[in-house]
């Protein structure tokens, strides 16, 4: 699992914000997020519920526009809903959802499902369309006979492979994967993860891999970023992230993972007890969003939000413990 050699960014996100109006008040789902994904890189975005990670992914694919900040794709500003994006842009950025059952129309055959993106993005028809559909299903490793089946007739892992095929069909450059394996069993997760890696290497794709599963991230992504209550806490290369986690939330999360062997226990930071619950995002705590649960909370944490500081090559933390201007 090598870190990408090239450092041309494919996606640059700065100060991204998103708010939703609810009956109880304004919900700040994403509160100012900055990160950069390079070409052919797999970037992991980790967080629990309420972290805003899925919202970030949704904005990138154009489900809705942001309420502030910028999203640059290969230098181009793309911060607008998909209906306002160019055809070319829509072709290049694709999405794989979490629930394979819900992402496939139960009234359409696999063939029809795979034909849609090919027709829309590449304007294929007739024999050329048939050929492209067949190539797609081969690419993800499913038998040809599946083309005439309905989604209910195939298993969860295979449905997800169809979703991946659907994302690959228009020959994209960037895929947002939102919890693509969370609904699947462990042995099938492994197969899908493998396929994703294989395809990424073959086709030089860039992935934004959104998940809450840290063990998966450990083995699959090049860089890892972690979010809490709409803000980025820490980003680093995966190796660095897991061997030297600095943000207290990162440590708490790592310490909470149930692991399978004594050997793995050693990789967990010395017990940072998991306490408290994630606060309601509508009533965000002042200062640092994590301060209500942080064992190292200081006075400044309660009033001032921390800023992202570089603490090592490629390793950034947003925490008063590590900020350049502590106290």
């Amino acid at each position: 699992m090598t870190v990408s050699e090239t450092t041309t960014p494919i996606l640059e996100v700065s100060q991204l914000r998103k708010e939703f109006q609810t009956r109880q008040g304004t919900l700040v789902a994403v509160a100012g997020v900055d990160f950069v994904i390079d070409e052919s890189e797999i970037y992991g975005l980790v967080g629990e519920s309420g972290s805003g990670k899925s919202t970030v992914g949704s904005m990138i694919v154009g489900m809705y526009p942001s309420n502030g900040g910028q999203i640059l794709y290969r230098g181009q500003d793309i911060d607008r809903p998909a209906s306002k994006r160019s055809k070319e842009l829509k072709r290049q950025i694709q999405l794989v959802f979490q629930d394979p059952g819900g992402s496939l129309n139960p009234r359409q055959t696999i063939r029809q499902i795979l034909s849609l993106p090919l027709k829309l993005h590449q304007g294929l028809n007739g024999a050329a369309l048939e050929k492209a559909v067949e190539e797609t299903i081969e690419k993800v490793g499913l038998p040809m006979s599946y083309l005439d089946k309905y989604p209910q007739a195939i298993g969860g892992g295979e449905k997800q492979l169809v979703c991946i095929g659907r994302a690959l069909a228009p020959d994209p450059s960037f895929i947002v994967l939102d919890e693509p394996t969370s609904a699947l069993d462990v042995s099938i997760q492994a197969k899908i993860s493998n396929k994703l890696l294989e395809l990424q290497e073959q086709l030089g794709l860039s992935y934004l891999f959104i998940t809450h599963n840290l063990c998966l991230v450990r083995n699959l992504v090049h860089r890892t970023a972690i979010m809490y209550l709409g803000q980025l806490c820490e980003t680093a290369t995966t190796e660095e992230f897991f061997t030297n986690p600095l943000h207290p939330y990162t440590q708490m999360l790592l310490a909470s993972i149930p692991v399978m062997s004594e050997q793995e226990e050693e990789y967990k930071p010395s017990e940072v007890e998991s306490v408290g619950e994630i606060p309601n995002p509508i009533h965000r705590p002042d200062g640092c969003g994590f301060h209500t649960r942080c064992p190292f909370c200081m006075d400044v944490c309660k009033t001032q939000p921390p800023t992202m500081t570089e603490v090592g090559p490629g390793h950034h933390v947003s925490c008063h413990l590590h900020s350049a201007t502590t106290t």
Partner: protein
Amino acid sequence: MANQAKDPQTLLDVRDLSISYKVYEGMLRVLQHVDFRVESGERIGLVGEAGCGKTTLLKTIARILPMPPARIESGEVRFKGRNVLDRDKTSHRMIRRDVSMVLQDPTASLNPTLTIKSFMGDILKNAAHPVAKAERKQRMLEALEKVSMPSPERVLGSYPVQLSGGMRQRVCIAMCLLKDVDLILADEPTTSLDVTIEKQILQLLNALVTENRKSMVLVSHALGAVRTMTDRAYVMYAGNLAEKGATAKVFECPAHPYTIGLFEATPKLSGEGVSDGIAGELPSYLDPPPGCRFAPRCPQAKAICREKKPAAADLDGSHTVFCWVHGGRQEGDA
């Protein structure tokens, strides 16, 4: 009756249980000849992936499996010595009183139109030793405090929708405490919760079970949780038992090729990369393969594996595997 509970007797003894479901295409042979045992005060782990039959097993024990379309082909489930599959009132009442389930989706287990106080009060009213009205609130608050519920007074007056997922699951566990059950069946109790909350809930469950000397069956595909929280573990594949034994042994030296494959497929914090997973797919339950159900996918399969169901092979007293590769009590190859 009270004495029996204190004696070290087998609390739950499932013997040779086979269950089939009737569906349009025929009979699905969901469980085959499963033996399963829980002693008083033991914590048992049940490991397996979707479709292996673990939920069916739990539901059968709790007697909430809908009997058509399900059908018991053979076997019995003895709880405190009594076969609960008999359709008599006493065994029915025994299960209702002494067994409780904590399910994956706490939202589905709690009636959205009742306040927490209502159904906790209900449990206390109908308990084996009904609690007087004056005392009830006190007991409810005690139970909520035992599950580390923040602001218990407020929670009592709330409806389930007003509570977070973690809090709802705590309520479910508190209800088990109120009922003072002997056996808790936890079916993926933390799968729908966040990782940090998951840890808290699992710790809570563990503490309660050990402090009050209750028994627990934990079904989870978070293998790490099973490893740290159970004394003995069973591994199931496609309705059959693959392996069973002391948890430490099963996790340190898994013997069955399925268990080995499963452990290998789990991504590790130590960063060993992504495994290939287990080739192949689950067998058809309508027309299951004659021998070992894992044989079509097994990298170590031999001729006998495809023909005959594997018998138990004792590895060292507290670790048994159902696999011809490890020999068997019948004529198996070395």
